[in-house]
């Protein structure tokens, strides 16, 4: 195209348009057409083809002339290509029609862009306005002109390219007026030639990705201004970004190149004070992104890109170093002046939130998030939309005016008032033991194969400990806070999950709100809080989500397997079952019935989905699953210390029917009646979901009846298994059925003429509301405590707590009198969660021996002293000072009463601890299996629970090293590295024969099985999580 000769507008500016083509023939016609009709045409046009395989060179040559087409290698970067085009005009005379001293500009055009007719004129107009402007970019629209692509670009601290636009944001002029920016895209970029030359053009280090941002950053740092002329518009197909073609300018994968270049250009251009922090941050960030790429996005390619990028960054530091060196010479403005041009952190977090929302809440949630951020569509709207004032409220106001939020906040206030007596020390009481020191204690308990509880235990730690540990970790390691959240926050948490779960099922928010309050005020919940029943509370919170997920998983159309939904629902069920495994059994019953009763997908597919759903829990809960199978009592026994819930004749059938499991904090019996009535009647007219709700109710009820009729093992006379978890299932089902029925009731009644049905429905509705209100008032009046309390937990005097921490690790026997003596041996200053669930003796003889020792001590038999020493007991504590039934403890020779104010404490005069040395006759007696005589002289050595590492002096004879733990082959002892021959002391304790020589004694335990199981469990959980996440879908 020959240069024009007529006088042009902006004659003081000479423009050289450089078109770079790379397999872009399909867009070139539009580009060339746009170029041809420019109201202010460029003075020179040169095309650079980077080895296109299509007809691009021919098209360009046909339009511009063969001489105006430069050919460069296919792997040439954009910068190199542009420079080649510019170099083609080296030494050329000034084009006609412009001033002699005209300022030279370079207009970069991609082959996949098309400028509007006035694009260049608008760009020049903007450039002409200020002498400090060195680069001007257009407003870039999508190829179909419907969406904004760019109005300037910037970069965040992670190196991510940021446009500040919502994806697929419609252009309504909302971004017009954007002025100074960090950079503009190279498609349509107008840059001063002298500046281009001074900064060296596009840095070829970052070919394809990041070179435009880097150029803009350098221009700004040099003191120039980079602005956007939003009235200059070009269309851009973004073929490379959209994956419509590939680039040969870099050997890295596209994602990896973008990530690497982003990090490198930030490190190259940012303040020198930020280089080191960012260099340290990037590897961590990349690893996290890689993990999330796999877990959240299920995109191994994304993870690979992260790994490749960070590897390249770390292994090629010289790239950044040399780049910084080059930029240091040109930098004129300090970094802080450029900071406003960089992307704020909020953009990055918003994007992360979008990712999470898209991954976990689905595309609808993501679209909803973006819709809220997008500008309101202009134009005429419906009247009702105009009067919908909520949209005019702020985010906070809008949030707090939602019915669900109102309900949850109201119930939070209610719970705070009801919990008024529980804000003090650590929570305990009922079945709940005090929380341990921190999350690390819970993790230790979960990971350990042997537990130093009671007489030592190898029972697998229940998986709820890991759940609790995870929650505690999230809460900054505070285990007590996790317990408080679950127990004190049970009502609002339950309400929250119930409301969320009911949202798709119940359209009318008043019904939803009522159902939420009804579920949160169920007698099961109030009883569970008062009784410190952690498992029931967890089930109550999780159940609505599990039911919703299950309904969604099993109720999806026949198309697609939907297995990821089944697995997700199975995971929620597993979470609930980890606290109360009977929930899983109940769920199996529900799924069997619903699979065969409800039509939908073909039966084989329904069976498959149901099977997958129920299979998840046993798999991810390994190895505990096997433990439950061999100890079926765990299905029904619940969490915590032995149940004190006692009723001679079992819970009455009517109580079970009305979701009253018995025990403390139960509202009047009738309050749940209307809900049960509604749940039963609902099956007659309501949707299938109501019938599913009834099936859940019936399954829970049947399970509760069975559970309540089982013979319970407990130290409490007439103890019964508490049916909280099963009745929670029943309550959830009843609420679901009743809520769906109430939702549909107006429409169902409207179809019928007035009869008895309408008054009956009104009566049930009023009664249901009154029942829930009564339950709430009753709970509020009574308070949430008793037996749950926040009073000081330990019964040990301070000196006894200190003595428990002695270096020989002695134990404390705590005894309470009564018709049955109840006792516990403490290895520390007190018991904590989850000690009660780990305290399963590995030996049969040891508990019997300890029990005999306690009985002997209680009646004052002298042999008790030796018996207690066998178990490492040094202190005997009677918490109740007035307990006369234990007065004869004083008769035991060798038990010295220690002055204490509120308790009775005896200290053994015999040396006792975790590891003792016996010699002479004592050793012979102990090895023979006989009781340790009260005249024995054991020597306790420094040790911790199950472990000792101590120097032992030589002695005259062979000694017996006795560990106060039941005999097991897992124990081992070495003296100066040589294993000692194992034997048994007292007939139950682990012991070793030690030669007279002294040396370094080490006692330890090897428990490799637990670690292997944990690895299996971890793999199962990770795989299940991966399978539960829906596959990534393209937004286009």
């Amino acid at each position, binding site marked *: 195209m020959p240069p024009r000769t007529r006088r042009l507008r902006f004659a003081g500016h000479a423009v050289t348009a450089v078109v770079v083509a790379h397999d872009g023939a399909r867009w070139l016609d539009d580009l060339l057409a746009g170029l041809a009709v420019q109201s202010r045409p460029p003075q020179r046009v040169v095309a650079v083809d980077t080895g296109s395989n299509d007809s691009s060179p021919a098209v360009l040559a046909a339009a511009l002339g063969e001489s105006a087409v430069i050919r460069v290698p296919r792997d040439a970067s954009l910068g190199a290509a542009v420079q080649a085009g510019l170099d083609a005009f080296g030494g050329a005379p000034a084009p006609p029609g412009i001033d002699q001293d005209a300022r030279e500009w370079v207009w970069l055009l991609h082959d996949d862009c098309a400028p509007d007719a006035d694009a260049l004129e608008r760009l020049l107009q903007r450039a002409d306005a200020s002498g400090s402007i060195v680069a001007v970019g257009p407003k870039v629209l999508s190829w179909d002109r419907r969406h904004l692509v760019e109005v300037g670009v910037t970069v965040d601290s992670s190196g991510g390219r940021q446009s500040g636009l919502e994806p697929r944001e419609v252009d309504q002029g909302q971004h017009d007026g954007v002025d100074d920016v960090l950079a503009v895209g190279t498609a349509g970029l107008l840059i001063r030639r002298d500046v281009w030359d001074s900064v060296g053009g596009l840095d070829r280090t970052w070919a394809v990705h990041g070179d435009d941002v880097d150029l803009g950053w350098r221009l700004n740092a040099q003191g120039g201004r980079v602005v956007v002329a939003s009235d200059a518009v070009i269309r851009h197909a973004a073929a490379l970004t959209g994956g419509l073609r590939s680039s040969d300018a870099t050997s890295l994968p596209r994602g990896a190149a973008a990530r690497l270049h982003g990090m490198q250009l930030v490190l190259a251009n940012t303040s020198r004070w930020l280089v080191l922090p960012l260099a340290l941050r990037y590897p961590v960030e990349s690893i996290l992104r890689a993990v999330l790429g796999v877990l959240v996005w299920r995109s191994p390619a994304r993870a690979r890109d992260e790994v490749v990028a960070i590897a390249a960054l770390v292994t090629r530091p010289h790239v950044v170093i040399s780049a910084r060196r080059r930029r240091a010479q040109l930098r004129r403005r300090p970094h802080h002046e450029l900071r406003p041009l960089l992307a704020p952190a909020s953009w990055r977090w918003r994007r992360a939130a979008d990712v999470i929302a898209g991954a976990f809440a689905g595309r609808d949630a993501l679209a909803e998030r973006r819709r809220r951020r997008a500008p309101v569509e202009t134009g005429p709207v419906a009247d009702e939309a105009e009067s919908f004032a909520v949209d005019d409220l702020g985010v906070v106001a809008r949030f707090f005016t939602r019915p669900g939020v109102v309900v949850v906040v109201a119930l939070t206030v209610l719970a705070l008032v009801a919990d008024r007596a529980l804000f003090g020390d650590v929570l*305990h009481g009922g079945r709940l*033991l005090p929380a341990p020191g921190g999350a690390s204690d819970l993790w230790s308990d979960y990971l350990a194969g042997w537990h130093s509880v*009671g007489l030592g235990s190898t029972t697998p730690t229940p998986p709820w400990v890991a759940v609790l540990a995870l929650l505690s970790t999230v809460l900054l390691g505070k285990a007590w806070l996790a317990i408080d959240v679950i127990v004190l926050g049970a009502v609002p948490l339950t309400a929250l999950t119930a409301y969320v779960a009911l949202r798709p099922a119940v359209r009318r928010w008043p019904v939803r709100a009522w159902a939420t309050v009804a579920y949160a005020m169920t007698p099961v919940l109030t009883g569970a809080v008062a009784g410190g029943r952690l498992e029931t509370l967890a089930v109550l919170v999780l159940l609505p989500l599990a039911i919703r997920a299950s309904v969604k998983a099993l109720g999806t159309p026949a198309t697609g397997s939907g297995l990821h939904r089944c697995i997700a629902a199975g995971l929620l069920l597993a979470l609930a079952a980890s606290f109360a495994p009977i929930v899983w059994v109940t769920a199996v019953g529900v799924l069997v019935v619903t699979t065969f009763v409800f039509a939908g997908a073909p039966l084989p597919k329904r069976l498959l989905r149901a099977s997958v759903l129920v299979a998840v829990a046993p798999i991810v809960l390994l190895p505990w699953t096997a433990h439950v199978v061999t100890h079926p009592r765990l299905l029904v026994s619940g969490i915590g*210390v*032995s149940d004190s819930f006692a009723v001679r*004749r079992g819970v009455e*059938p009517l109580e*079970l*029917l009305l979701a009253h499991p018995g025990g403390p904090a139960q509202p009047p019996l009738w309050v749940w009646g209307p809900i049960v009535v509604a749940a*039963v009647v609902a*099956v*007659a007219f309501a949707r299938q979901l109501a019938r599913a709700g*009834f099936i859940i109710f*019936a399954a829970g*009820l049947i399970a509760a*009846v069975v559970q*309540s*009729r*089982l*013979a319970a093992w*407990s*130290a409490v*006379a*007439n103890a*019964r298994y508490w049916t909280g978890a099963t009745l929670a299932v029943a309550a959830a089902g009843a609420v679901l059925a009743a809520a769906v029925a109430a939702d549909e009731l107006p429409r169902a009644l409207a179809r019928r003429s007035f009869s008895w049905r309408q008054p009956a429905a009104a009566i049930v509705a009023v009664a249901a509301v009154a029942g829930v209100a009564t339950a709430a008032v009753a709970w509020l009046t009574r308070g949430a405590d008793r037996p749950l309390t926040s009073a000081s*937990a330990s*019964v040990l005097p301070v000196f006894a707590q200190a003595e428990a921490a002695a270096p020989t690790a002695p134990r404390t026997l705590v*005894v309470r009198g009564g*018709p*049955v*003596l*109840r006792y*516990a041996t*403490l290895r520390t200053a*007190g*018991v904590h969660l989850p*000690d*009660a669930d780990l305290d399963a003796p590995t030996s049969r003889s040891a508990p019997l021996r*300890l*029990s005999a020792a*306690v*009985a*002997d001590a*209680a*009646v*004052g*038999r*002298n042999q008790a002293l030796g018996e207690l020493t066998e178990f490492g007991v040094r202190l005997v504590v009677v*918490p109740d000072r007035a307990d006369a*039934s234990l*007065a004869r403890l*004083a*008769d035991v*020779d*060798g*038990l*010295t009463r220690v002055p204490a104010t509120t308790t009775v404490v*005896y200290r053994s005069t015999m040396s006792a601890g975790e590891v003792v040395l016996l010699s002479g006759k004592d050793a012979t007696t102990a090895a023979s299996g006989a009781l340790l005589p*009260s*005249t024995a002289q054991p020597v306790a050595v420094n040790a911790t629970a199950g472990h000792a590492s101590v120097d032992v002096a030589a002695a005259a004879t062979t000694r017996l090293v006795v560990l106060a733990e039941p005999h097991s082959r897992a124990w081992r002892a070495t003296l100066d590295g040589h294993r000692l021959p194992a034997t048994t002391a007292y007939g139950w304790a682990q012991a070793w024969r030690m030669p007279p020589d002294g040396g370094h004694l080490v006692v330890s335990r090897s428990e490799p099985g637990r670690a292997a199981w944990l690895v299996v469990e971890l793999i199962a959980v990770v795989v299940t999580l991966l399978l539960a996440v829906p596959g990534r879908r393209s937004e286009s």
Partner: protein
Amino acid sequence: MSAGRRWLAAAFVVVIAVTVSAALVRPSQSVTRTLRSTTASVGTATFVCPSVSGNGDRFATDMTIANLSRQPVTASYTALGPVHTPLRGRVHPQPSVVVHRTTPGAAVAVTATGPGAAGLAVSQVGLVPAGKYRGSSDIACAAATADLWFAGADGRIGTSDVLFISNPGATSANVALSLWSAAGPVSVPGVNSINVPAHAYLAKSIGDLAPDRQWVAVHVHANSGTVAAAIADSHVNGIRPAGGDWLPPTLAPSPSGVVTGFTGGARVDVLHLANPGSRDATVSIRIVTTTRNFVPAGHQSVVVPAGHTTSVNLSGAIGGEISGVAYTSDVPVVAEAVTVRHPTRGFDELAWLPSQPPLVSPAAFATTTPPFNQIVRLILTAPLGAIDVEVRAGSGKAVTVHVPSQRSTWIDLRAVFGAGATGPGPILLTPLGDQPVYAERLLYAAGAHGPLLAEEAATVLPRATVLPPTVADLRVVTRR
């Protein structure tokens, strides 16, 4: 029928079926884990005699070790502390063995091991025939325990009361003493932590602990270990002997009790009461004689101020009848009685009578040999209802004694069993009913220098220890 109606019908059927099933299926009674007490047979029995000692012709002690079981037993005895001449040995009582000590000795621990230990009874009887401490003393040797109570000791001049505390255990014991008198609690420095070494005994003078205090009550509490204790009580009126006896441990503070063994004849009978509590006690007394029971005139109720002791002279009320005294109090009190003979010629003599728990299991007297082969009697009191008591001699001969309701009774053991001068030997008492009954054995001799009187409460034979049921329960560790 529409689908909705079918669903409704099915729902009703399910609900009713489940409810009815729940009503029909009740948990079995075995749901409660039955925890029962167990018994541990007596494997070892140890008794402590407070002082087995003598001094040639002037003073001798007979320690009688009796085996009232049907099985042979070997008992060993050893002195608790150094002695000049050996005081240890191994015997096979069948039915009894007497260790006669005429040289200075010490407290003695008698231990029997094996099944026969359940029939072991030991007592010591001392005789000072003449001199300043003339008198006869008698005490049942007892097992060590953590708490022992005494009432009626005296810290005044003219009385020599010595508290013997013995520790037969293998580890040292630590005891604390508490004393009360008619003037109130006695503050004694240095008695809250007295160490009694293993296999040793120590003696503390009441006169030193509570000088010039009368009616002194003593509580011996073992802070650690167990001890046995008794008070040697001797009275001297100027240079004239006024009798002596062992003041044995009595029943721990209790709202009721019975002291039996008051004998006929000219004498003074005094009931000592101590109230170690913090509230004043009002004590009601009823005398149970062989012919009647009544509230003594002038002593309908006796007020014992908190922390004080008092004494009630019942001489006039008892009136020379063999009897027992039953008392009740609104707050726990300690009671012990003394019966003093005032012969018209010769020296006074006395005997201490402890308050006892009722006999609910076999009890025994190790010896029934009267001083100078004179009188040995068994006194029984049934304060509430009639009861028969089987009395079996070591020879195997047995008689059944009927104790009328709210009466006391007595038998002459020599006569009943047709025994010779040394008496019928050890006797075993077995209550044959549920009513409470109390027993005391009297040894008596009338001599030219006055009477010799000694009494002893029945020793409850070691019983199989009832071991309470136990269960491990972590709930005990947290506050309730």
